[in-house]
């Protein structure tokens, strides 16, 4: 008891000593955080506010006045008109952002298909890699290495596989007398060709999380189930998959977030062509930003992406960071 009160006394002395020199000592933590805070403020928070602000304006035209000089008219505030132009279909299609709804729908198909195919595949890969198999490191390397490649580099390898005349897939099909496909120029096919690249690139990444999850499940659960006569597949569906629910939920969030941001493959595959059928939102922004007349729209589309991504990452944070903060 006495010891406790002594330590409280010591603590209060430290406290009072600290109050005597409040100025520079109290500044230290803020100085330590300042660099990070400045960069986050300058390159994340400020641009987000500016994006929102500019999404409410139409840029002024560059016109000639009576004396024939070029003058820049001021931007006009249009409220949510830019968003209305994006989301409300018009006939004829809007001259600048007429393709938006098509591209938004591509992006959603791209995200849903990538995530919906990649996650079960990654889970299957993790099951395969979690067994005793000769040369496991080599097989794991084979499945994981695309994660590390620049997306544009991985996609360029696929550009060769997909190539219409000199490409590998069509060459093989031709030698087997199977009809060839123009993988990157057939409107109904092209988005799926892009999705395949994304699956190949990311499956190994999610596999790692499932592997870690599998290894965290205690072995004796399986032993008990085996004693009760449960088959491998019964164990899979009643033990493994339910116990990995959290991992799946987590991967669902990060895979969706990732899918909305991956567009660099389009640079070497097909630039979003033909007819915007493989175009994705972020690539659309990249194509439009040099046009000064599209400025309001570019910012409005950016805001749409910000809201989508913010929602996913907020879910991620609410579910998972909170949990790890509690630990």
């Amino acid at each position: 008891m006495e010891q406790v009160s002594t330590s409280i006394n010591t603590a209060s002395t430290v406290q009072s000593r600290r109050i005597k020199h409040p100025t520079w000592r109290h500044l230290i933590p803020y100085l330590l955080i300042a660099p990070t805070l400045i960069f986050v403020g300058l390159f994340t928070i400020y641009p987000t506010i500016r994006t929102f602000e500019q999404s409410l304006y139409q840029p002024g035209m560059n016109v000639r006045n009576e004396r024939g000089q070029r003058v820049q008219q001021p931007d006009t505030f249009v409220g949510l008109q830019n968003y209305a132009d994006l989301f409300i279909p018009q006939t004829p299609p809007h001259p600048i952002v007429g393709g938006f709804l098509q591209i938004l729908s591509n992006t959603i198909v791209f995200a849903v298909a990538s995530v919906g195919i990649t996650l079960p595949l990654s889970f299957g890969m993790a099951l395969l890699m979690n067994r005793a198999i000769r040369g496991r490191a080599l097989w794991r390397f084979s499945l994981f290495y695309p994660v590390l490649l620049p997306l544009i580099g991985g996609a360029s390898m696929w550009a060769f596989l997909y190539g219409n005349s000199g490409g590998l897939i069509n060459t093989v099909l031709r030698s087997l007398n199977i009809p060839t496909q123009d993988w990157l120029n057939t409107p109904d096919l092209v988005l799926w060709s892009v999705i395949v690249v994304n699956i190949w690139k990311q499956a190994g990444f999610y596999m790692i999380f499932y592997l870690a999850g599998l290894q965290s499940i205690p072995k004796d659960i399986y032993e008990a189930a085996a004693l009760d006569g449960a088959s491998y597949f019964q164990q899979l569906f009643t033990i493994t998959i339910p116990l990995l629910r959290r991992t799946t939920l987590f991967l669902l969030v990060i895979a969706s977030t990732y899918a909305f941001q991956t567009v660099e493959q389009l640079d070497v595959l097909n630039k979003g062509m033909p007819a915007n059928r493989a175009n994705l939102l972020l690539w659309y922004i990249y194509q439009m930003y040099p046009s000064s007349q599209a400025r309001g729209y570019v910012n409005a589309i950016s805001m749409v992406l910000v809201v989508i991504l913010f929602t996913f990452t907020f879910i991620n944070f609410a579910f998972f960071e909170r949990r790890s903060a509690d630990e």
Partner: protein
Amino acid sequence: MNKRNGWSVLADIITVILSLIWVAPLFFALLISIRPTSDPLGTGNIFFGRTITLENYQRALELAPWQWHYLTSILVVVGVLVVQLITITMAGYAFARMKFWGRNALLFILLIQLMIPSGVLVVQNLNIMRQINLFDTRWALMMPYWGSVFGVLLMRQTFREIPPELEEAARIDGANLFQILRFVYIPLSIPTYVAFALVSVSARWNEFLWPAMVTRTAESRPVTTGLSQLFSATEAGTNYGQLMAGTILVVAPLVVLFIFFQRRFIESFASSGLK
């Protein structure tokens, strides 16, 4: 028992087939890159050409100013990493071990960086770079990444696991804050630093969209833009030998790095997803 073996063999076969499919793009990229242009795929053996040649690499090297691209990529990777290591150590320590007014509020503000990826803010960040006259410079490729909230959280977590008694002992010996970080926290966190470095290096080496927007001249452009340039060069156009030679030039450094650090790479990517 017999049945179990049957399933095992089947699973082994699937593993091998899946791995072969996954390696195929890299494998065939390598093969076509050393195959002479005069001996295209359709003329015979799809695996090997009649001879092996490096002419594709020579042509690919001539079609883009790679020496500048490599220099820029290396400078950017190093320039980002060095600053990040300093900023994440400072902020990570503050959030792990110091109590101060507004700590949680500040942490929450920083978390916005994880919620709004800089990838979607490219247009406004481009405006900022024009305003501060850094458009088309290597600085523009580095600065947006100097503050890494993911790194701060990683270091905060790592520092918290270090026993506070070590710090107190150092303090009693008269160590100042810099010395405490230098001799207590940093040496005990090397594995986390290595993991962070691997993720940071591969992210910057692989980046394309931002460099393509914010740089114009060859001197300030990284390797990924060189590959893009190769694809739009009419001569390379659909000359897959040259295109794949360029691709190998861009991806090789990371594949080699991966072979050296394989285990650590996989672990660090697992923890990087936890941001």
